[in-house]
C-alpha cells in the first residue's frame, strides 16, 4: 500500500481472502492506512522512544543516538 499501491489489485485481494475474512481485511487495510499516515507525521516531529532497549528512561538526545536519525523502516537497507 505504501511503496507500490498499484500492486494491491483484485488478484491481491483474492489472495488475501484465502487467509482472512472480509472483516479482517478491512481492519488490516484501515490499520495500515492509519499507520502509513501517522508514522510519516510523527517522523517529521523528530521524537524518539522514552526508553532504551534495556528499559532505561533516556533523554531525547540519547534516544536519538540509540535509535538513529531515521526510523528503521525508512533506512535504505530496510527497502532491500
Amino acid at each position, binding site marked *: 500500500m505504501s511503496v507500490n499501491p498499484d500492486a494491491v489489485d*483484485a488478484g491481491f485481494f483474492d489472495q488475501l481472502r484465502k487467509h482472512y475474512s472480509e472483516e479482517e481485511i478491512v*481492519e488490516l487495510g*484501515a490499520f495500515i492506512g492509519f499507520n502509513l499516515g501517522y508514522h*510519516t507525521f510523527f517522523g*517529521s*516531529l523528530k521524537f524518539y522512544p522514552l526508553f532504551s532497549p534495556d528499559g532505561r528512561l533516556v533523554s531525547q538526545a540519547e534516544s536519538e543516538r540509540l535509535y538513529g536519525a531515521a526510523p528503521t523502516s525508512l533506512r535504505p537497507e530496510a527497502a532491500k
Partner: protein
Amino acid sequence: MTHIAPLPREAITDPELRALMAEGEALGVPDDLFPRIIARAPEQAAPLMRALLMSHARGNVDHTLKEIMRILLARFAKDKYFAGLRSTKARDMGLTEMRIDEGCFKYEDDSKGFSEAEKCALRYADLMFLDASQLDKTFYDEMKKHWSEAQIMELGAFIAFHYGMQMFMRSLGAVSRTTSIPAGEPI
C-alpha cells in the same frame, strides 16, 4: 465495484455509526460508501468515521483551507474516491473548484492571494508524503510564525489520517458515486 463490497445500508444497525454516516452525507465527505465498507469491521467503524469527520469539519483551522488540503492529498494519493467528494460546508463558505485547483497546484504563486499562513499549511500537506525530510526544524519554525502548536498538531493529524484513509480507499479501487464536480473538471 470495490474489492470489498460495501454493506447494504439496512445492515448497519449501530446507532452511532448511522448518525455519523448521516453527518458525513450532510457534509458530503464521506458519502455512504466509506462507512458501508468500514462497517464490515464493526469495532473499527465508528471510531474511524468519528476521526474522519472531527478532523475535517471541526477544530480551530478554517474548514475551507482543510478542504483544499484534503483534495490536494487525495489527488497526490491518486484516490478517485475522496478526490471526487466535496464538502457542502466549504462550498457554502464560498470555496469554488477554481480556488481548489489554485490551492492544489499554484498556492505558491503570489498572484493567487494565499496568505503566508495558508501557504505554510498547504506546503505541509504537499511535502508530508512527497518529501517529509523537508519538514525539518526550519519548516516547523516557519509554521509557528502563523499557527499555534495546537493548530499545527490539528493540521498534522488531519493530514496523516486523511491521507491514510485515502490510500486505503485507493487500494480498494473505490470511486465516488456522489461527486458534485462538473464534468471535465480534474479529479
